């Protein structure tokens, strides 16, 4: 009955899908310990589910054999891990300095009225969530808006409707 501690790196992982587990395992291979995969695991789960629920935090903890509190501590530290449900598409409006100088507020306000929601809210049909975001590294094309991973540059009021339409189902 001799057990040498920490020989097996992963636990059962509860509700994680085989796909998620496979992707997490791929990352596990090149880090020193399981904690290092924590952020990636959160991102993987978010990629598949849109956001990270309490159960997912526990499942990741379970799988990586670290405490749920440790996963939660990381999940809540980073801006782009969503711990609350979001719409199918997340629209982020850059509100940092270059976009501010270029008058991003009109874009923001137009988005709000177009979608009928405020920052932090999701449209009733569950399609869009609107969030402010920090500088997106495209300041020469300010104002910018990101819809999921797509960057929209040189946005102005007039372009807002077309962008939203483009992403409507």
């Amino acid at each position: 009955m001799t057990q040498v501690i920490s020989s097996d790196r992963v636990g059962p992982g509860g509700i994680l899908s085989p796909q998620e587990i496979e992707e997490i395992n791929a990352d596990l291979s090149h880090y020193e310990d399981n904690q290092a995969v924590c952020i990636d695991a959160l991102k993987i789960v978010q990629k598949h589910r849109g956001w990270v629920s309490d159960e997912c935090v526990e499942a990741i903890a379970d799988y990586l054999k670290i405490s749920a509190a440790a996963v939660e501590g990381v999940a809540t530290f980073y801006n782009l891990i969503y711990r609350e449900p979001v719409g199918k598409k997340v629209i982020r409006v850059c509100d940092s300095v270059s976009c501010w100088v270029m008058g991003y507020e009109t874009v923001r306000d137009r988005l709000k009225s177009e979608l009928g929601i405020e920052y932090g809210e999701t449209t009733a049909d569950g399609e869009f969530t609107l969030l402010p975001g920090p500088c997106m590294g495209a300041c020469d094309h300010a104002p910018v808006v990101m819809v999921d991973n797509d960057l929209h540059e040189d946005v102005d009021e007039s372009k807002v409707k077309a962008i939203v339409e483009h992403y409507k189902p």
Partner: protein
Amino acid sequence: MPTIVIDGEPYDVDGDKNLLETCLQLDKDLPYFCWHPAMGSVGSCRQCAVTQYQDENDERGRMVMSCMTPITDGMIVSLKDEATQEFRDSCIETVMTNHPHDCPVCEEGGECHLQDMTNMSGHTQRVYQGPKRTHRNQDLGPFINHEMNRCIACYRCVRYYQDYVGDTDLQAQGSGAKVFFGRHKDGALESEFSGNLVEVCPTGVFTDKTFSKHFVRKWDLQSAPSVCMHCAIGCNTSPGERNGTLRRIVNRYNGDVNGYFLCDRGRFGYDFVNDQRRLAEPLVQQGDSLDSTDRDDALAQYANLSADCEVIGIGSPRASLEANFALQQLVGEDNFYSGLASSEQALHQTSLTVLESTSALIASLRQVEQADAVLVLGEDILNTAPRLALAVKQATKNLGLNMAADARIPSWQAAAVKNLAQNQRSPLFMLTPAATRMDSIAQSCHNDVPANLARLGMAIANAIDGGAPGVNDLDDQEKELVAVIAETLKGASKPLVISGSGCFDVAVVQAAANISRALAAENDKAAIHLVLPEVNSLGLAMLCSKKPEADLNAAMKRTVDQVNGQAAVVVLENDLYRRAGKGLVDDFFDAAQSVVVIDSFHNDTTARAQLALPAATFAESEGTMVSSEARAQRYFAVHNTEGYVASSWKWLAELNKSVSWTHLDQLTAACANSSPLLAGITLAAPDREFRLNDQKVARQSHRYSGRGSATAHISVNETRVAQDDESALAFSMEGRQSNLPPALQPGIWSPGWNSNEAINKFQDEIGGHLKGGDPGIRLLDKATAGTQSGWFDSIPQKSMPGSQGYRLVPLHHIFGSEEFSSGSNAIAQRSPKPYAALCAADASALEVDQQGWLKVELNSGQWTLSVAVDDSLPRGVLGLPSGLTGLGGLQGAAYGGSASISKTQSPVIASDQTSGGGE
């Protein structure tokens, strides 16, 4: 020794410390939050800023964080420089922008480090008028309150919880100004040491929930130097009382023993003192019932009951040396019995023999922390001696500290040391019957029945020193384990072996003794620590060492066989139904002419008494206890007894017509004289005559309020202050409050330092020993060891569990296995229900799962218990919890034996009973 200049004054200082510690050690007041003497520096709060100058000509200087600044010879600094003073003020102002203005209702008020530091920094005016951030608090279980709005984000709680203790369910969450410290969701904190958060948190985020129920301000508490009663480690405590109720326990620093921290059993186990089941008056049997009586009648009753017959005395490992000694004197040495079953008596006597003759150091907790390789043989220390386990956890960090030293990173650079070491630890080997919560930090661990663990231990000793007896027929895996452990211990510079009586197996202790002896032959730093089960187990063993065969079973046998019907039995603070099978105890009491019990509580034993005398608890009495490191320590009454309640030793002195002991000191001295082993105990603390400038020591603070009105509802006349004739302490605010001998220090306070952080002022160096010496006196150490005993050479047979029924092993619980603390509500809430544990393979062979029930039959009784699957248990082994309420009658003697078990139906559960109990 480097010299540094602080505000123009030169000082010779210790170069290994950081500048903050150095300043504090020089008695300078410099505010800080994130630094903690046991946890080092991380530089987050920025409160400890000082100005450092390049040389004499540098007039501007530059601001540095003193906690992050190493000492260099010739360095010039200023604490008074205006710019940094202003900065420190602004830091306070800044954390205060979010801090609620709730000091009047905050339980930290009056002993709040934040209040102290606010004062110290000089901050008075706050200009911020914006909104404050708010948090939702969590339910953290029965021990700890959570009030996150008070948080100043010093990160001490999580650093303590994760880095110092190694638990992970409390974490920093969120970021920026919204950073939150808590669990991932509501629930009891998992750590066995969560209570220290109360003292670690510099403000009122984490406070003592048990204290809340009967809260008073620190300055309104009456306190005394005391010793924890809940295991044999002997942590020093400072219990606080108000209006006859014990309100709480806080840590009392002892540099050799508990340092800054207690375990949760010790901190939250006190409430039994206030329990309804306290015996308040003498009780005399009248027909079928016990009726109250007064003191004189009780004494007369005793005279009657004991007239013309032998009097047999049953002592107790939970009573003081003095009380046991008084009983021994009352009944005569020939009639005094230990109150322990033979198996336990043998175990404790073996431990004593080992400690008396050891050539290894007997490790204090401070020495445990310094070990660089630790073998734990048989003992689930986290549950039987929790504070020892916390010390072992520190020992595993020594590798990291050594790595840091090689990389020239100072040991106080906490985060840097941790980052460098990552998961590397000094070796710890856990050889225990079942998995423990220490295993995750062990290099390797191994679970087996005690006899086989003893064999491994014997083999390790033999591998270190060929002179030690060897063990045949180990399998290859065992041989490899033995080789690795032997090699590691041998190669260590401070190897430590920990064992104890938790397995109820003498061979385990003997094996540990052999290992330590083998190590000590080559290494004078080799150390041993043997855990004993109860607060005074070792003291009782010393008192009984001349007649080790005089145990409870002998007393029973003698009473039943020889003096049947002609002996009065006097039982001292001992519920014998926890020590021996019900049948045996019943027969014993039946055979006695009369049973006299001195105890603090109603229990199964007092229920059999013809006369029960109400004994004071530790909170109302005084005496000497001997801890498992053979340290004799004195505890003192926190408050006076009420009514007829009296210290056991006082009752016994009164019952004894042939002596005239009027004071504890006389008993202590007589006890010391009775045996060379105990000769030192008078030195454990100053005696009752001790005075400082003709004054006694005050138990109450300068600010103790309401003395005149405390009894105003009874009489408008101010009542006379209770007198303490037994010690140099007074039940009063009059008396000395400062420069006290450590053993008489009721609590910690220093001007401007109202929290326990004031301890810095009382240490010879930060984190070192107390000025004037750490309390207590070591009765044994290798220096005092007499003749070196030979090797223990009886090697147990290989145990093949499953061959004849299930082999029983004990499982211990920090919450639940110990008698006193189980009587405290908060602890009871955390105690498990009785269960039977076995591995998954056995469970499936029996066709039961976690929801199932088992009928467990032993010689001493049978129980229906719910199943707990514990896959660390070998096949054929049954783990039963030790000492749990509801498993009465399951004594140590049963362990090691075998049981037969079978699947059964869930018992019919009485409405108030949720799980299977004893039958």
